[in-house]
């Protein structure tokens, strides 16, 4: 089974601060990590490979620093790593991102399965997995919490729902987005770290993936972030004092104008 796992480098949520002036996320000095849901996707890919054979290729769209999460994935059992990186990709929303990732994956050749985390903890859209499936014209199942079988070229799955789970089957090639209940990610192994250290990471730019420049990055995005702000707290607080009867009287007094 040849598996592609899409991973993203995100700021560590334990360390997120907003710049009070610009209301944008302060990225300086904030540690970057692999999106936590993607760690589960990598783990599931490696487990499927260990069970059914094949390879796991991790792919990430991002700046050159995103190599760090690709190497982390390799140290945890992935075989190959691909960085999709170009200045032209900057500012992409999920529409432009799925276009770019789709083009890159088409370049990688044949695959049986694509795994994604259910969402990234920075954007929180949960759109890239399903969007990518649409771009590649393959079926997808989101919120997968368990893979129960692999028969007749299809995967049997449990999809997490609010009130339980659905039993679903998906023919391959297909795409899954996974929730954290699916597994417990392993820590890197020593041999994996050694391999990751020496691995040369394949890099693809806009030209390599034959992308239409108009569809990339900010110009290719159908949504724009106009403003990011923390909602202002407008409530007023007052402590009432005195006996219970006095406090009730004061409260009625305060509420009366609004009745």
């Amino acid at each position, binding site marked *: 089974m040849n598996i592609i796992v899409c991973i993203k480098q995100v700021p560590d949520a334990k360390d997120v601060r907003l710049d009070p002036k610009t209301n944008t996320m302060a990225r300086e000095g904030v540690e970057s990590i692999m999106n936590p849901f993607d760690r589960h996707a990598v783990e599931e890919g490696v487990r499927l490979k260990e069970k059914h054979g094949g390879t796991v290729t991790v792919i990430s769209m991002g700046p050159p620093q995103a190599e760090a999460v690709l190497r982390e994935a390799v140290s945890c059992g992935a075989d190959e790593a691909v960085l999709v990186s170009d200045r032209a990709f900057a500012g992409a929303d999920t529409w432009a991102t799925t276009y770019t990732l789709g083009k890159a994956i088409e370049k990688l050749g044949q695959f049986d399965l694509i795994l994604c985390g259910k969402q990234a903890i920075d954007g929180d859209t949960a759109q890239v997995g399903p969007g990518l499936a649409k771009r590649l014209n393959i079926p997808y199942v989101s919120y997968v919490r368990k893979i129960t079988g692999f028969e007749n070229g299809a995967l049997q799955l449990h999809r997490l729902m609010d009130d339980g789970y659905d039993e679903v089957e998906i023919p391959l090639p297909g795409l899954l987005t996974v929730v954290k209940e699916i597994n417990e990610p*392993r*820590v*890197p*192994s*020593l*041999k*994996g*770290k*050694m391999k990751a*250290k020496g691995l040369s990471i394949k890099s693809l730019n806009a030209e390599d993936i034959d992308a239409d420049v108009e569809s990339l990055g900010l110009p290719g995005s159908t949504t724009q972030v106009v403003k990011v702000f923390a909602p202002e707290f407008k409530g007023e607080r007052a402590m009432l004092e005195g006996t219970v009867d006095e406090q009730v009287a004061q409260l009625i007094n305060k509420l009366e104008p609004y009745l």
Partner: protein
Amino acid sequence: MDYFLTEEQQMIVDIARQITDEKIIPQRAELDEKEEFATDILNDIAQADLYGLYIPEEYGGFGGGCFEIVLALEQFGRGCVAIATSFAASALGAYPILLSGSEEMKQKYMPDVASGKKRAAFALTEANAGSDASGIQTTAVLDGDEWVLNGTKQWITNAGEAQIYSVVAITDKSKGARGASMFVVEDTDPGFSCGPKEKKMGIRASATCELIFKDCRIPKDRLIGRQGLGFIIVMKTLDLSRPGIAVLGVGLGQAALDESVTYAKQRVQFGKPIISFQAIQHMLADMAIQLEASRALVYAAAKHIAEHPKDMSKASSMCKVFATDMAMKVTTDAVQVLAGYGYMREYPVEKMMRDAKILQIYEGTNQIQRNVIGQELNKEYT
């Protein structure tokens, strides 16, 4: 402080730290409370390739030495001394084979120990033989092509959880210490069994039981090295393993200091965080000084003994005494800093204090270590 680790050594630290933070620390209190062996966590350690750190590459290991395993053990000790002990005990059981076993024996056992597929254990102590190893009563008698073992070993770490046991038994009573030999016993050997799990003060998530040999028959080639070499192998093994115990003290001391400082910054009394009081500051400062001095000594000793120098026993004993006495003191002080909260099982430091005590006792009491150091000094100055 920066100890100038190589890139590979830093990798070992990073992996061990991640296992400690993500797997050990979240589970340690429950495992301690239930006195449950941490099989899953030890499997995580195995899958991260850390069981083979000190085993040569030709037997499937990483090819590191004492210092490499010390680096991993420091992190595990910071998380839970019980789990770290279970991991370390496998190395203790494997060292006799690595040090004195035949090539066939190493080929047979080491790859499985290196991969963590099988765990090892070391069996020396008996009811009447602890610090005084000459009191050993377990015997091994050659009967045709088999050794027949009889006797009982006591307080054996990993008993019941290990598949490979390095066992000391008397093969010639008339020769005293020179009449002891060492054998490999497998858990499936006929006549071998384990007693019930001991109830301990600390390191409760580790397995400690008796080993019972009742006409236990093993093939002739399970003798490690030659007949009569038992005590020499034991001494060499312990020289190599003691820095591993010492560094558990360092890891544990670090954990106790971390908890103490974090708490002292948060706890407010008399309108101020208690870290602003000199009484607390001085306690924390003393903890930090002792801790860093221990770390420096243990690292130095672990690197020094890699070359098997003449004063190996002294270096190994010195770091064991210093770092484990430190751990007892620092964990006791941590309970004092956290005071009422520290005494509660809801907070981690009472477990640290309980766990620290064993470090002064096992792999040679700290009194015996001082004997070793004293005797070495006596020899050095003649």
